[in-house]
Structure formats: C-alpha cells, structure tokens
C-alpha cells in the first residue's frame, strides 16, 4: 500500500492512501439520510428568530454607539476595557476548540472525536468572526481599524493580535472547507432535499470534487498540514491575547503565567462549548446513533482534565499574590476575594471549575444531560471569568484615583454594551445554527468510511 509521508515541523505522519468509499448499501443510505442537513422545524425557526431579534437589538445599540460615540457606554478613563474586551477574550478562547478537537485529537490519533470535528470547526469559525467584530466595536469608530494598518507598530501586541486572528480565521475556514469537500459531493446528489439555492451554493463550492484517490490524497495531505499549522497558531492567538494584558504593568496582569493560564482556560471553555453543542444537535437532529453516550463519557473526562488544569493555573495565579499581599495589589485582591467582585469571582471559580470537576469525576456525571449542564456551567463561568480578568484590574490602578467623577470609580455596563455583547453572542450562535442548516453537522464521508472499516 502506498503511503503518504508528510514531513512538517518534525512530525512524520504515515497514512495509507485513502480508500474511496462507494455508497452501496442500505446502511450507507441510512447514514446519509440521518446526517444530511435538515430544514428548521418549528423550534428551530423560533430559535433563529429569537437570535435574530437579539442581533437586531445589538445592531441598534451599535448604531447608537456610532452616532453618539463611546459615551453611550459606561467605559470611562479607568475602565477603558469593559465587557467588549471581556467578550473578545471569551470569543478568542472558545475559538481554540477547533484546534483542540480537530487538530490535537487527529494528530493524537483519537478516533472517537471524528463526529465532533465539524461542530468544533463551526464553533471556532463563528467565535473568531465575532472576536474580530467585537474588537472593532470596542474601538468606537470602525475606521480606527484602518489606522491600525497605516499607523500600527509591529512592536505592539495589538498588531500581533490582528495578524494572528486573521491567520487563525483563514485556517479555520480552510479546516472547515477541506473535510467538507467529500460531503458536498454527497449533498449534491440530494438536490430536491437541499433546494435550488442551497444546491447552487454547494455546486459553487465543491462541484469539482469527484472523490478520486488523487483528490483524497491531496485533501488528506492538506488537512494534516492544517492540523499541524493550527496548533502553534492557536497557541499563539491566545498567548498574544494574554500578552495584551501581561505586557501592561497593572495589578493582576503583571504575570509571567498568563499565556499558559489563558490557553488552559481557552481549551476548557472550548470543550464546554462543544459538549453543549453536541447535546443540542444530538437532541434537535436525533443523532443519538452518531453522538453516543460514549462521546459524552469521553468529553466528560476531557472536561475534568481541563477543569483541573485551569484550576491549577488559577491557584497559581491567585494564591501566590494572596500570600504576599503586596500593598499595591491588596485592594485588587481583596476586591476579588471579599469585596465588590467576590460574588462573581467565587461564582466563576465554583461554577466554572470546581463543580464541573465534582460532577464529572463520577461516572453518572458523565451522562449526556449532566455533561450538557456542566458544559453550560463552564461556558457561563468562563464568560464571567473573562470579565474578572479585565475589569477589577482597571479599577485598581497602581496610582490612586484622585479627583475623578464618582462614575469613574465603578463600572457597570450600559444597556448599549449589554445589547451589543448579547447581540454578538447571539450572532455567533446564529452562525453556528445556520452553518448546521447548510452543512452536515457530522461529517458524512468520514462516518461512512468508519462504518466500512468496521464492516471490514
């Protein structure tokens, strides 16, 4: 058998020349029928309308921000990064799931993760799109984004972030597109089910795929290269995001631990997002045969591992400063542990890390519903954790705040900020929903190949 030898970044992958599966049996037909994209039902339509309304409210709030300036937000001289930046960090974090499920699992030979790859890639793409949008929203006037290119300095981590987010966005598109090609061929066979417009779209993006061994060879090679490339880029994207904070001398951000701390948190929230999506798609599209309890069991274990890892980094991040309690950081730390931010802080720690560990270490906790609930807890906890990374630090500068208006001393987002933030979250979920309507949420070709391998 001919082997593909791919040598890149020191990794050699031996892989047999792909066998082109032929769809012959009734079993194959059943798999295809199960996995073809389905039209929205009543609940699906309500869900899309609901998300669209939230997006529209967010767009109206953004219109107000464009018209009246950033003054409509609660951000002032001290808290100049509010929930927009918290949300940006959250989106960047969740986008890392694409590299975890698709790339790391694939490179590590984790076969059971195959049905989850499309979900992970779609979430990653939606998240990175809205990470880019929300950072432009934070700039106030969108034309300032253009200034980044004409006046940007390569010495600034902000420019690194722009470069690396653009790169990650492009890789995410390719990583979604390449594995889709064999599925497009299948989708094109079901013109009536897809509808005319969707069929035209499939035709446009993948009619050239005939499924020849040569095409498979090129495609598999490309996917392997992408999997290798996306890992360092994914690590870079979140490390650079952490450096936006860590290169700034402020209480809570002055840490050498930040890159690893952010990446651990990103993998956790990404995995949390995937289990939530797994559960919802499994229920909505009746995919119990493909996303099995075993997947939840395995993802539950992954979540425990990632929760423990993130908890470890959090202990590192807070225990040593708490032990030293430097005067310049005392107000910040006390604010988190026992002060104004304590409810949110302990909520994020308990709901986002400790309870998930407690629930998931038990076998019963790794059933679909508990894993779904834990996934929701992890995602919600993670969002508030990002808020805690940004805001308390800005409210506790090293130099005391003197002679400033009372509104500068506190931060609570305005309705416009909430609307834009919720609109962006709804927008990301809308992209995931629409992509799940357009493309098979579980790779059909891979499932068929796997089935054939089992049969053999």
């Amino acid at each position, binding site marked *: 058998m001919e082997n593909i030898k791919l040598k890149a970044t020191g990794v050699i992958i031996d892989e047999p020349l792909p066998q082109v599966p032929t769809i012959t049996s009734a079993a194959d037909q059943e798999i295809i029928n199960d996995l073809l994209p389905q039209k929205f039902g009543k609940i699906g339509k309500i869900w899309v309308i609901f998300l669209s309304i939230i997006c529209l409210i967010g767009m109206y709030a953004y219109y107000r921000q464009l018209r009246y300036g950033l003054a409509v937000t609660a951000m002032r001289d001290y808290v100049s990064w509010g929930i927009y930046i918290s949300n940006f960090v959250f989106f960047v974090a969740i986008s890392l799931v694409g590299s975890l499920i698709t790339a790391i699992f694939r490179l590590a030979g984790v076969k059971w993760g195959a049905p989850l790859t499309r979900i992970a890639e779609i979430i990653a793409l939606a998240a990175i799109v809205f990470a880019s949008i929300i950072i432009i929203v934070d700039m106030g006037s969108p034309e300032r984004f253009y200034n980044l290119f004409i*006046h*940007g*300095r*390569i*010495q600034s981590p902000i420019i*690194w972030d722009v*470069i690396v987010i653009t*790169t990650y966005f*492009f*890789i995410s598109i*390719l990583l979604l*597109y*390449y594995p889709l*090609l064999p599925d497009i061929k299948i989708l094109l066979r079901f013109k009536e089910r897809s509808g005319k417009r969707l069929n035209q779209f499939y035709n446009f993006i993948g*009619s*050239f*795929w*005939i499924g*020849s061994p*040569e*095409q498979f060879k*090129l*495609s598999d*090679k*490309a996917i392997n*290269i*992408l999997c290798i*490339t996306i890992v360092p*880029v994914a690590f870079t994207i979140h490390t650079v995001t952490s450096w936006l904070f860590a290169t700034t001398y402020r209480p809570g951000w002055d840490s050498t631990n930040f890159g690893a701390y952010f990446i651990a948190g990103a993998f956790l929230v990404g995995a949390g997002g995937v289990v939530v999506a797994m559960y919802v798609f499994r229920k909505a599209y009746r995919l119990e045969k493909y996303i099995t309890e075993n997947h939840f069991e395995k993802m539950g274990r992954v979540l425990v591992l990632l929760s423990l890892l993130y908890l470890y980094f959090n202990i590192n991040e807070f225990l040593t400063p708490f032990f030293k309690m430097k005067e310049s950081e005392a107000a910040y730390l006390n604010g988190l542990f026992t002060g104004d931010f304590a409810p949110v802080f302990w909520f994020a720690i308990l709901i986002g890390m400790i309870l998930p560990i407690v629930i998931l270490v038990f076998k019963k906790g790794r059933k679909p519903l508990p894993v779904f609930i834990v996934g929701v807890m992890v995602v919600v906890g993670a969002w508030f954790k990002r808020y805690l990374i940004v805001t308390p630090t800005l409210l506790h500068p090293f130099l005391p705040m003197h002679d400033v208006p009372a509104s500068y001393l506190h931060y609570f987002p305005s309705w416009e900020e909430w609307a834009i933030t919720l609109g962006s979250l709804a927008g990301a979920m809308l992209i995931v929903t629409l992509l799940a309507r357009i493309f098979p949420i579980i790779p059909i070709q891979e499932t068929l190949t796997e089935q054939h391998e089992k049969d053999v």
Partner: protein
Amino acid sequence: MKRMYKTVGPALSIIFFLSGYCLAQGPQKGNVSIAVNYFVQNNQIPYVKVVAKTKVDGRFQPVPAIDVDVFLDKDSTGTKIGHLVTNSKGEATTLIPQSLKKEWATSVKHTFLASFAGNNKYEASKGDLTVAKAKVLISTNDKTITATVLDMKDTTWQPVKGVELKIVVKRSTGDLPVNETPTFTTDSTGKASADFKRNNIPGGPSGNITIAAKIEDNDQYGNLSIEKTVPWGAKFIPVNTFTERTLFATRDKTPIWLLFIAYVIVIAVWGILLMLVINIIKIKKLGKAN
C-alpha cells in the same frame, strides 16, 4: 397720644439706624511688614528685592499686589529707585537705575528705603536696609577654590576678615557644597579656600560644572555671589535613543530582529496557507480533468 406714637416711633428707629451706621467702624486694616534685600550677582549691577508679608492666624502670608516705592538714601523724588508692585509671592525686584549712578558713587554705604502708602486693606508701612559696597572674587587652582571678599574703603577695595560664605556647586535643583564643610570664613587677607571633593559629579557633554561663592543675608553686605565654570565634572553624554530602533520607537524604527522574526513567521505561515489554497486549485483541476 396715638399720633405721637405714630410719628416718634419711626423717627427714633431712623435715628437709631443712622447713628449705628455713622458710628460703625470700618473693617480693621492689616499690618504689612516690608523687608528689603540687596543682591549683587557676579559683581554686576546691584538689585533690590522687596518682600511684603502680613500675619494671618499667627503665620506670615505674602501680600500680593501692593504698591511700594523704593528710594536710595532719602525719601525724595530725585532718589527714587522705582515704583514696584508685589507679585503673588509678595515680592518685587528692581535694578538700581542708571540715573542714580552719581548718588551711588558718593558713598561706600547706602540705605534703601521702601515705602508702602497703605490701602483699604493694609496700613501704611516702611522698611529699610543699609549695606556697604562689597564684592566677591573667585579663583581656582588644582581643584582648590578660593573666594576673596573685598569691601570699599574710601575709594579702594580692601580685604575683609571674618565674612561667612558658602562655596558650592550649582545643580539644577539647588546648591551642593563642594565638600563636607557647609560654610567658610574669610581670613585676614579676605580669602576663604575650599577643596573640591565632588569628583565624578555629572557635568555637561564637556564635563563643565558651575561653582559659586555666596554671601547670604549678611548684615553689612547683603547677598553677594559669584560664579565660575570649571571642567571638573564627569563628562555626561546623554544617550538619546529617540532615533534608534527600539521596542518603544515609532513604526519606522522597529528593531531589525523583530522585523525579521515577524516577517519569517508571517511568511512561513501564510506561505503554507497559500500552498493550501493552491492545493484546492489542484483538486479542482483533477476534478475537471476527470
């Protein structure tokens, strides 16, 4: 009777009111203390500084914006040095004008008279200061500084013994004594010497520093000082990185190593991505060929 009440009552009220108004004293005026100081720097034209203060709650406070006339020796129009207005610190200065050169030359001692005529807030006040003409010279030899104090006796300059003075290095924030001795006293030859012990003190790019001899608030001579520039400082060439390639420079001054690393990474990653896009074109061609 009722009519009487009606007329006498208001009349008494008016009288009472007017008497109170007429007999009332105005607000008490404050006292101003006028001090006169005399300065000669580098043996050039002397100048006079007037300082006006008043006591408020037991503490002296400057009196700004008052008019003070300063005279030489006697309070007359012909000997008027100038009309001054104090600033926010209660101070005002004036040079001795050329028109008083003749009067200045007539005596080795002079009295400066400062007169404030008073205003609606302060009582009138006067101050005076008598000084003898004197000068300070400075010379250096092998890092030894010698200050000489001379005063005018008749028409010649004579050395003065027992005058206390400071020998210092001038710095941007104040004066630094040249060694551990804070003050020096002149000997019978009118000289006081000090060894310069502030080695390695930063000077300019040429290592120049300014040393000075100062007589301060002397009862006889006022404030005299003289300066001299000497090359005894450490040469200090400020390092200006503004035009150099640094991490904090402008975009056109990015360090080469950073540009190299950034470009290598960007080209490598985007090169791979470009290759993958070309790969799609190859797949497309394969599909069309079949």
